[in-house]
């Protein structure tokens, strides 16, 4: 009983801290007004938390009375989330083989071998290219999602993250299971033993590694992209159009460069499609977020320098 006041004050502090965090989801003007009302009425921390939670819930729920958020959910959040999960799983599984190979066959003596360094550099470049492409696809997906519904960024961040996790845990594994079944059934490929079976026999590479790749290379960059789209409003119309074209081309590239999708459409085997110059050009367009971020950073620095003069 003796420590009740301090315990109570700790709960109060936690409640007010949560009030502060939740209030961030409100418009800055409304946040100030509501915090002022709570201070003036002298309510307890738990009551303040309930009040703010109620207001935030109402504010977040209000747009769902209209059709636009539902359209965004069905046409962008769900398909992009699933597509990124499948792509992320494919990239993770591909790189898991290389990680396993180096982790299980590491010999310090190889470091003096020029051939080792050649193969190692080639592998790192290959994995890095795959990871960078995945990051750019994820960032662009977030950027597009944030741009089409700026007022819903917070809600869409949560929904997109949930979709990505659902995709990682349920969607992508089922998709690949179906894909392999389909390939065997349709093309009559014999069921050969999987040469990478020792890698995926380990729970880390089978379960954990894809989740780590998804969290770092997909969830993080897509949420970052959503936040970055707020700067679009300050750009010139022509620049905005260019960014939109780059974003649409990137999303198109994500669909085109997913070979599994094309297997279902029976166009995988057609010669000339995958090595055409247009596809190669798309690969460069995919990296546009790097150019955009570098240009934004230089622009901000330049503005700060001009302001300080």
């Amino acid at each position, binding site marked *: 009983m003796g420590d009740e006041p301090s315990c109570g004050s700790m709960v109060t502090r936690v409640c007010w801290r949560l009030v502060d965090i939740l209030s961030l989801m409100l418009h800055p003007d409304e946040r100030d*007004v509501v915090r002022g009302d709570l201070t003036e009425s002298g309510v307890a921390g738990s009551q303040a938390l309930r009040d703010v939670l109620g*207001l935030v819930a*109402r504010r977040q729920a*209000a747009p769902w009375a209209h059709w636009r958020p539902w359209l965004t959910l069905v046409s962008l959040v769900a398909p992009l989330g699933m597509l990124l999960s499948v792509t992320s799983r494919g990239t993770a599984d591909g790189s898991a083989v290389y990680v396993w190979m180096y982790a299980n066959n590491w010999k310090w003596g190889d470091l003096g071998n020029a051939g080792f360094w050649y193969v190692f550099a080639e592998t790192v470049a290959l994995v890095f290219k795959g990871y960078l492409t995945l990051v750019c696809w994820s960032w662009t997906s977030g950027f597009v999602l944030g741009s089409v519904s700026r007022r819903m960024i917070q809600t869409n961040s949560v929904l997109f993250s949930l979709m990505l996790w659902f995709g990682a845990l349920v969607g992508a594994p089922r998709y690949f299971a179906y894909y392999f079944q389909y390939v065997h059934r349709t093309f009559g490929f014999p069921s050969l033993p999987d040469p990478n079976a020792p890698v995926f026999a380990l729970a880390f590479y089978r379960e954990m590694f894809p989740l780590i790749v998804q969290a770092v290379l997909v969830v993080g960059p897509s949420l970052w992209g959503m936040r970055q789209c707020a700067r679009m409003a300050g750009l010139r119309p022509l620049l905005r159009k260019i960014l939109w074209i780059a974003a649409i081309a990137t999303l198109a590239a994500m669909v085109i460069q997913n070979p599994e999708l094309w297997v279902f459409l029976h166009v995988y085997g057609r010669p000339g499609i995958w090595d055409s110059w247009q596809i190669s050009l798309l690969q460069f367009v995919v990296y546009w977020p790097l150019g955009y971020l570098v240009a934004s950073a230089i622009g901000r620095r330049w503005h700060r320098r001009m302001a300080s003069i």
Partner: protein
Amino acid sequence: MIGEFEYLILSAATRLGEDAYGAAIRQEIEDATRHRCSIGALYTTLDRLEAKGFIKTRMGDPTPQRGGRPKRMVRVTAMGVHAASDFYAAVTRVSRGVSWETNRVAVPW
């Protein structure tokens, strides 16, 4: 026609006059109804009333009692007064002759 909570807000804001703002309206409603009035319900209804043109709101000056934070001042428009009068007239008409209207006791306040 406006809803009952909208009517409560319009009445409270009219009664408060120049001093009508979020926390004061909330207090007025809680005193009158003896029920809690949530901030969520209050501010979303204020937005709705403003969208309908029944009130106008503006940011007031920050005060020390509020930790230096501003108030959202509320002013009922002529349209708002009209809507509240219509609601009151409808409630009065529909209540005429019902048991709780004929046996009504004086409210202490």
